[in-house]
């Protein structure tokens, strides 16, 4: 799978209140949540995003509340991938359950600037920065997460357990 899009860079410790403030948690609708993605960081932030773009963040992305609405809002906003230095624990788990791909790349994230064009190649395990001509390799996912993705996420997994 190859994802291509423009990078939208945010800082360290971006919490789930910034990703989707509590006042918008009165719906489970993917599109409505997506329309308000990052509204807690900056009003109208979402206007810069085109379908297929990539969120790029610093340390501890997705910290705070356990709201699954956060990865849902990012998916709903049209961003299939988040690349970060590191992720908060609950957000990490939620994202895989919701089909949002997370890449934890450590300090290499500093090599990506806001607006760079990125190609995320999941088979080759590399992020190509076509703006700078550099590449960031990323390690394979933990086996347990690969297994979950292979089964198509948590919902199909539980379906198969209940069958």
């Amino acid at each position, binding site marked *: 799978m190859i994802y291509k899009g423009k990078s939208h860079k945010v800082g360290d410790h971006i919490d789930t209140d910034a990703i989707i403030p509590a006042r918008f948690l009165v719906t489970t609708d993917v599109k409505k949540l997506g329309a308000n993605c990052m509204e807690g960081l900056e009003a109208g932030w979402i206007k810069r995003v085109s379908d297929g773009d990539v969120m790029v963040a610093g340390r501890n992305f997705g910290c705070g509340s356990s709201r699954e609405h956060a990865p849902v809002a990012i998916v709903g906003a049209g961003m299939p991938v988040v690349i970060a230095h590191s992720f908060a624990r609950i957000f990490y788990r*939620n994202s895989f359950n919701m089909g949002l791909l997370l890449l934890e790349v450590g300090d290499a994230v500093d090599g990506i600037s806001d607006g760079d064009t990125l190609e995320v190649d999941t088979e080759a395990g590399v992020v190509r920065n076509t703006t700078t001509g550099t590449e960031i390799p990323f390690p394979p996912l933990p086996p347990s997460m690969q297994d979950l993705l292979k089964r198509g996420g948590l919902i199909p997994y*539980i379906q198969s357990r*209940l069958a």
Partner: protein
Amino acid sequence: MAHTLAQKILQMHTDEEVGDAGQIVRCRTDFVLANDITAPLAIKSFREMGAKDVFDKDKVALVMDHFTPQKDIDSANQVKGTREFARAFNITHYYEGGDAGVEHALLPEQGLVKPGDIVIGADSHTCTYGGLGAFATGMGSTDIAGAMALGETWFKVPPTIRVTFEGVLPEYVGGKDLILRTIGEIGVDGALYKALQFEGSTIDNLSVEGRLSMANMAIEAGAKVGLFASDAKTVEYCKAHKNPNPMLLAADEGATYEREIKFDVSNMEPVVACPHLPENVKPISELEVLPLNQVVIGSCTNGRISDMREAAAILKGRKVAKDVRCIVLPATPTIWKQAMKEGLLEIFMDAGCIVGPATCGPCLGGHMGILGDGERAIATTNRNFRGRMGSLLSEVYLSNPAVAAASAVLGIIGSPKSL
């Protein structure tokens, strides 16, 4: 193998042998919960999973607490859908209206969680029950839906950071100050993917309510769980709260810790977390003059009866400063009634506080105390992220109830000793 508290509780819930940190284990869950924000998504996933029933109708709690009493049509519709689900599956512990309270104050009080349990909740502050010696952690709605269906989930065995506190707590310093100091020391991602285990003579002498406040904020350091041993104080608390036979529980001698941190609290003063992260912790005496617009005393961190007593002791015979709104939200109906019986509510109202219902409300910027542009609040809650309580241009400071109450009187953030 000698086990930390985290490993020990996981081992009690699986037939696999629990080993080193990093191992993935499947464990039985004793109790599963969701609230009015997260239950609707969990129910949606539960249905998509094709689940025909919950694993145990007595071991699932649905607590309508975040936007309660329902703040608008959309939140009312979310509660309506959750209520219909609860009735359809005959869920015993469905709380809405007069029996509802802030979930992490309510469940220990109702005896639904106990030492040695594994509890997972679609709320990040589920880690609160670590104060009773339960392995309790927050997850997202779909993980919760899976556990509601199967009564089990997977965990990565966490490495443990052992945090030891020694010394006698000075006046006006409590559990909240200990956990804020810990977060200040290790940072908001200092315990990412890890367990925090709290020990030492200070902890031995700390009330269970103080321990619950500390465990509550383990997540603010990124931790999976914040664990305390179950000791004589825990047993006494449980027996007084509908749990006649709680177990004693301690980590094994010789267990492996990733890191050890020690604090001497003898000369500690109250601390405050400054905007916009819980790690921006300063001793109260080092703060500049910070005029206030709002004070919030309540939440799953500090909305229990001991917190109400602490705040009332400061506010008794005093007045809230002009132009400051001081909002007091006892966290459950039982706490509310007890505060009424003890005359605490009268003290609050005589001081000029607003006494509101048991709700999460302003803590998450839900309702009942939202900050406008440029406004500043001090709160006994758990998060001071930018915009958490309202406007992106507002500020939230976090403190213990005595400091919050004193600040309400002073009109600026300050210590009870300044009164």
